[in-house]
């Protein structure tokens, strides 16, 4: 069995704890993501997918339970430690691309490395060029985000998610906002990267056709995992 890059045990998340409107949205999630795995996370709206993704992405802390990323127990880390681990180990692809409009495609791809290292250098520029070539956007590298199509922006976002060479890429409905053709291109690209580099992917999607093409499907319903074959 391949090693787990991500493992969750008994993850619970409660909002408004201690008040009358206390709501538990995750009721003890146990799951793991293995190295090189391409996994779909599905479930109806309001099932707790986004909360789970935020906790895995270290943007939010669980109320209880343990989360380990590449062997690091995240419960022991302070905010600064979480930020560093997030920068090194996790790449994000959001539904609405979320490129930074003030920067070009290439600069957006360099951004994760830039915030980590502080100063731009030739190596990160080369890395960005390489990744843009990989997603077929070399020609567009000097374009600002707003002058590209949705599909192109999402490909830049994938390149950006891969810039720091993370162990895990979390994609929150990466094709949800794209036409079928672009969705197919973007999905294919993520799969190619996964196969070529061994980066693990956890992809939230509503598109069952795409989910079925993943290595594994994890289904969350009402804050619990109901199927993880």
């Amino acid at each position, binding site marked *: 069995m391949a090693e787990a890059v991500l493992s969750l045990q008994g993850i619970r998340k409660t909002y408004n704890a201690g008040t009358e409107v206390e709501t538990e949205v995750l009721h003890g999630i146990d799951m793991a993501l293995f190295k090189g795995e391409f996994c779909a996370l599905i479930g109806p709206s309001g099932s707790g997918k986004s909360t789970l993704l*935020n906790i895995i*992405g270290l*943007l*939010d802390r669980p109320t209880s339970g343990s989360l380990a990323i590449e062997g690091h127990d995240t419960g022991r880390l302070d*905010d*600064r430690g979480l*930020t*560093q681990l*997030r*920068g*090194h180990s996790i790449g*994000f692809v*959001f539904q609405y691309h*979320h490129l*930074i*409009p*003030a*920067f070009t495609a290439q*600069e957006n791809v*360099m*951004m*994760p490395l*830039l*915030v*980590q290292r*502080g*100063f*731009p*250098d*030739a190596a990160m*520029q080369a890395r960005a060029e390489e990744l843009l070539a990989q997603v077929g956007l070399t020609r567009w590298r000097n374009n600002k985000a707003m002058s590209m199509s949705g599909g192109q922006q999402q490909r830049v976002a994938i390149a*950006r998610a891969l810039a*720091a060479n993370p162990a895990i890429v979390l994609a929150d409905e990466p094709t949800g906002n794209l036409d079928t053709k672009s969705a197919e291109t973007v999905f294919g690209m993520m799969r190619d990267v996964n196969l070529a580099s061994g980066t693990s992917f956890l992809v939230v999607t509503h598109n069952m056709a795409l989910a079925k093409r993943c290595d594994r499907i994890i289904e969350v319903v009402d804050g619990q995992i109901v199927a993880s074959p």
Partner: protein
Amino acid sequence: MDSHLPFEVIAAIRFLREGLVQTLLIVVGVAVGVSVIVFMSALLNGVQSNILNRVLSTQAQVVVLPRKDVSRPLLKDGAARVIRVVQSRTQRQVTVDQWRKLRDSFARTASIDVVSPMASGPVFIVRGSATRTVTVTGIEPEHYYHFVAIPDDIIAGTSRLTGQDILLGKDLTEDLGIKIGDRVLLRTASGGADTLNVAGIFDLGNKGFNQRTVITMLNTAQNLLGTVGEVSSIDLTLKDPYTADEVADTIGAVHPVEADSWIRTNAQFFTAMRTQTISFSAIRTSVGLSVALGIASVLVVSVVQRSREIGILRAMGAGQGQIMRLFLVQGGIVGLIGSILGSALARGFLVLWQVFARNPDGTPFFAVEIPPSLYVLTAVLATICGVLAAAVPALRASRLDPVVAIRG
């Protein structure tokens, strides 16, 4: 991307450039505020140093005089109930005791620049049937000319004096119809008299001084006033005019003389200057404050507008400190650019001022300069002010919850 700049500066510049209209508006706002402060600082400095020069150009900074005689009642207060009237004494002694010794002692004192003994007293100046009361002032020109710039203000003749020469003010010569080379009679109330040669006419720009002062050599005045070998006062100029109070107090305590400082004798003038400075400080503070609030409010809006980008940067591993610095740098850049534009604007105001604010004869009212150090100081202060103004928005940005921020 410039590899010499850190992430925070690169991103701050990009963010400011992206919201160009917003940035331009606030930069112009800062520039207008800075220009008002710089221009007013220069103007106030000009006015004050001009007034100060005028005040100091006709008087010494410390005047050493003989001690005053005072009446001492024989009955002490409390000894008995008495009704009494104590009259002030007429002053017998009009000359400074042992003035040569004092002069030598002053000359050795580090804080004193020039020591100028003077013999002065009231005389009548007579020409034909016209008589005027004036003060004859006997001087040692090599010392006196250091603080009253007679040689610069001579409008006819020369400032060089011999024992038979006098210098008169412009207004007095006009009153009496005197010209260079004329001989005039000076007579004291006690009968002393001398006829002297008019060597030069001066105009110190002060009508009172021009009308009532006759300048001559020290020994000529001593002879005329009947105080041979004596002086009525010793005038001092100091290395730093503002130490006059302390210097005068020390002299009064150490030597048996009275010492008046120009600061005390011009108390009203100083109150006026101080009031002017305080009211200007109040204006400067309120302009500075409104500029800072302007920067802060623009950045607060910018934090709201960019919350999603802040969230993404946080997701990519940017720390709270980096996000905070990103906004502090924006405040600093706005302050710096605003101050540079503002200084240029102030320079423009100054040129206009010098073109339009002129005396009827075409000379400027007074010299107004912006010293280069003021530009540097303004730039530094405005940058710090911008950074401080950005503190609240920067703190808000750094504390944004990335989850909420990304959701927008």
